[in-house]
C-alpha cells in the first residue's frame, strides 16, 4: 500500500480532499481508485465558477474499461480546475495525490470536511474491500 499523505480526507467513493492554506479545498481521486480504473484516457472537468453541491457529481474520469463520476465532498464554488489533465489524463495514474488533482473549491462551509474519513479509516476501508 502506498503512503497516504496525512493531510488528506476521504469519501467512501474514493475522492480525496485537502484544505489548502488559502482556504480552498483541492479534490482528486485516490491512489486506490486510479488503480481500480486502470489507464485513464479522459477527464471531464467542471468549469471555474460552477456552483457545486456536497455529494453531487461534478467531474468524470474515464479509463479504457470504465467511467466514473467524481463527487464533491463539499458545497461551494469551483475556483480552479487542472487543465493539464485534458492532454495528460494519465497524470492521475502517476501522481493521484499531487499533480493529478482534479479541481479546487472555495467551500461555503469548511466544516463539511469533518464529515470525511481520515487516512487511517480510509486505508482500513479499502483493505476490508479487498478481502
Amino acid at each position: 500500500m502506498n503512503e497516504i499523505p496525512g493531510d488528506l480526507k476521504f469519501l467512501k467513493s474514493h475522492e480525496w480532499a485537502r484544505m489548502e492554506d488559502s482556504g480552498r479545498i483541492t479534490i482528486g481521486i485516490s491512489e486506490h481508485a486510479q488503480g481500480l480504473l486502470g489507464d485513464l484516457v479522459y477527464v471531464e472537468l467542471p468549469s471555474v465558477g460552477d456552483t457545486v453541491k456536497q455529494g453531487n457529481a461534478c467531474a468524470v474520469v474515464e479509463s479504457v474499461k470504465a467511467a466514473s463520476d467524481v463527487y464533491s465532498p463539499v458545497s461551494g464554488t469551483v475556483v480552479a480546475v487542472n487543465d493539464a489533465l485534458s492532454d495528460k489524463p494519465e497524470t492521475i495514474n502517476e501522481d493521484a495525490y499531487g499533480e493529478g488533482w482534479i479541481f479546487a473549491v472555495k467551500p461555503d462551509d469548511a466544516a463539511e470536511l469533518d464529515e470525511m474519513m481520515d487516512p487511517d479509516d480510509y486505508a482500513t476501508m479499502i483493505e476490508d474491500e479487498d478481502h
Partner: protein
Amino acid sequence: MPFIPHTEADVASMLAAIGVNSIEDLFDEIPESLKIHALAGVPAGLSEMDTNRLLRERAAQDAIELNFAGAGAYEHHIPAAVWQIVGRGEFYSAYTPYQAEASQGTLQLIYEYQTMMTRLTGMDVSNASMYDGATALAEAVLMAERSRKKSAQRVLIPTSVHPAYRKTVHTIVASQDIEIVELDCPDGFLDPATLDKIYRESGEGEFSALVIPQPNFFGALEEVDALTDWAHARGALAIAVVNPVSLAVLKAPGAWGSTGRGADIVCGDGQPLGVPLASGGPYFGFLCCKKDLVRNMPGRIVGRTTDLDGRMGYALTLQAREQHIRRAKATSNICTNQGLLVTAATIHMALLGPEGLRRVAAASVANTQALTERLLRIPGVRAAFPGRTHFHEQAFVLPKPATEVIEKLAGQRMLAGFALGEDYASLDGDALLVCATETKSAADIERFAAAISAAVA
C-alpha cells in the same frame, strides 16, 4: 451465429425460478390503459401460405406508378448492385455483429460509412448510425443539452423542421425538463431578419441550441450562415438537420457561418442514400459532430487501430459513453446501429462516388424546377413561398383542397404529394408539397401536371 428460441419448458422453469406465473405478469407495472393488445390490420398468426397471400394483397394496394411525394422520404434510383451485395451472407443479418475478433468486415464497412458521412457533412466524427432522422434529431438535442450544462434547458426549433421530427423530439425530450421553443416560419423559412423579434416574443432567455434544417421541410433553403452565426453569438450550438443528397451540391454544415466554426452537430435521415421507400421504413439516421462533442455523442463508433503484431484492424471505440459501461448515465439508451441499411448506404455512396451523387442532386433540382414551371402554368396554382430557392421539393397552393387532389390522383395510381394543411394551419387545406427527383422524366412531369390540371379544374 445460431439463434435458439426458448422452449416452453425453458420459459416455465425461468418463470418458476423468479416466482412469476406468466410472461404477462412481468409487464404488470405498465398501466392497462397503455397496453395495445391487438394491432389494427395485423392478424394474430398466419401460416406461411396465408401470410404470402395477405402481403400480396397489401402490396397491390401500394402499386403507385408515379410518385411525386417526398416530405422526408425520397425516391431515388438505387443501383441493382447495392442490394445484391447487401444480401450476401457476410452482411445479411438483422443484428450487427460488433465483436472485433469475428467481424472485421462489418466493422471496416461501418468505419468507411463514418468516413463518408464526415466528408459529406464537414464534421470530425460520425457514429455508426441511429434509428432514423427524427430520433437522430432528438439525440442531437440531448447531446447539445449535455454539453452546454446551462441552467435553463431550452432548444429552439423552427416550424420549418419536419413536423414528425418535431413530434418525435417532443416525445423523447419533454420528460427530461428540456423546453422546446418552436419558432414560427410564416414565409416558409426562418428569417434571420426577424429572428430577434421572434425570439423576444418567445420569451428570450438562455438556450442550448438552435436547430437549422437544410433544405427545410418545404424544400426551401434556409439562410444557414446567418442562422449559425446567430446561435453562436448567443453561446448556443447550431444543430443542422440535412438531406444527405443535397450536401453533394450545397455547402457542408461544417462550413456554415462566417467564423469558420460551422455547425456543431449534424443529423438527418439516411434513406435517400440507397434505402428503398418501402412504405415508410425501416430507414436509418445519421449523426455527426465536432471532435470536442464526441464524448456526448450517443451510439456506437468504430475506430481504426493496430493489433499486437502491428496489423491494421477495427474495433468499437469510446465505449465509456455507452450503457454497458456507464449504466444509467450513458449518453443514450441506444447501443446499436441500423447495420443493414448503413451497409446499403455505404455501397450506394461508393458506387455513385462524389460525382455521381452530385449528378443525382443536380438532376433532382432541375426536375423540380421543370415541374415548378409547369405547375405554375395551371390556372389558380401558385407557389406557397415564392422567391425562395428550393432543392428538390416545393409547396404549391391549389384552387382545391390538397387532400381532394391527392385522392383523385391516387385513383390514377399517382401519389400527388403531401398535404400541408394538417400540420400548418396558416397554409389552409390547399397547400401541396411536391417533389421530383432524378427518377422523373419530362413525360412523367407532363403526365403529372395534366392530372393536377384536371383535378383542380
